């Protein structure tokens, strides 16, 4: 059974999403050579914050060429999403770091 307190929260969340046309910020972290979350969703106009928690430089490089951001060690880099699509991206320095960004219109 769904606890009673869940209902208002779900309602508030649903309402929040439906009335808000404001751009959101999605945070993606790079730590110990892992991108987290491995699959993130965002909307066109949203800002993605790439937080590099490692002592090593990383990149977020889209396979389709849409973006190629360098994130120095212990730094955060932001980008505004301009195009919808399912974008696979990776780190050029460590191609074993891979993730997906689902950008909806």
């Amino acid at each position, binding site marked *: 059974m769904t606890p009673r307190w869940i209902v208002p929260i779900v309602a508030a969340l649903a309402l929040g999403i439906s009335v808000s046309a404001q751009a959101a910020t999605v945070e993606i972290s790079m730590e*110990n050579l892992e991108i987290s979350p491995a699959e993130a969703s965002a909307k066109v106009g949203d800002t993605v914050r790439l937080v590099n928690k490692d002592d*090593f430089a990383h990149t977020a490089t889209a396979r389709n060429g849409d973006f190629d951001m360098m994130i120095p060690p212990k730094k955060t880099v932001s980008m505004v999403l301009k195009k919808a699509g399912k974008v696979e991206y990776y780190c050029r320095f*460590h*191609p074993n770091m891979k993730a997906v960004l689902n950008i909806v219109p």
Partner: protein
Amino acid sequence: MFVRLSAAIAAVSLISGAAFAAGPTDPQIAHIAYTAGTIDIAAAKQALSKTSNKEVKAFAQDMVRDHEAVNKKALDLVKKLKVTPEDNDTSKTLQKNASAKLEELSKLKGAEFDKAYIANEVAYHKAVDNALETTLIPSASNAELKSLLETGLKIFQGHEQHAEQVASELK
């Protein structure tokens, strides 16, 4: 034990355990890992002085930056743990083979050098990854050292893939 090893894989096998009857100790592991890093930095510096290929140059710069960062973390850790890295036969063999490789590569030029350097980077990172996975990580007793080696393994695996990618572009 040594009889089974062929000369070609001797260096790899050495770090993979043949040299240690009971597995390397933490001070030895720290020395091996640090040596493996300095070897790759030296190789990258040689490449930077010889290559004019953009991809190869970028790759070599990545190697210097990452391996210097890993080795700095390693030095910080041994200082914190008050461990003195201990030279050992595996480190010595690694260093000896690396010097021979530098000498061999120094005689090559242009595209020939680029291909040989990148091919060696693929092979070298594969060998180090294998040593980390099969010997160094399982033998490490200190948790922080083990964790640093695990991070090192992911970085080295990344470098291996990166080197393979550059190698395929050089063909």
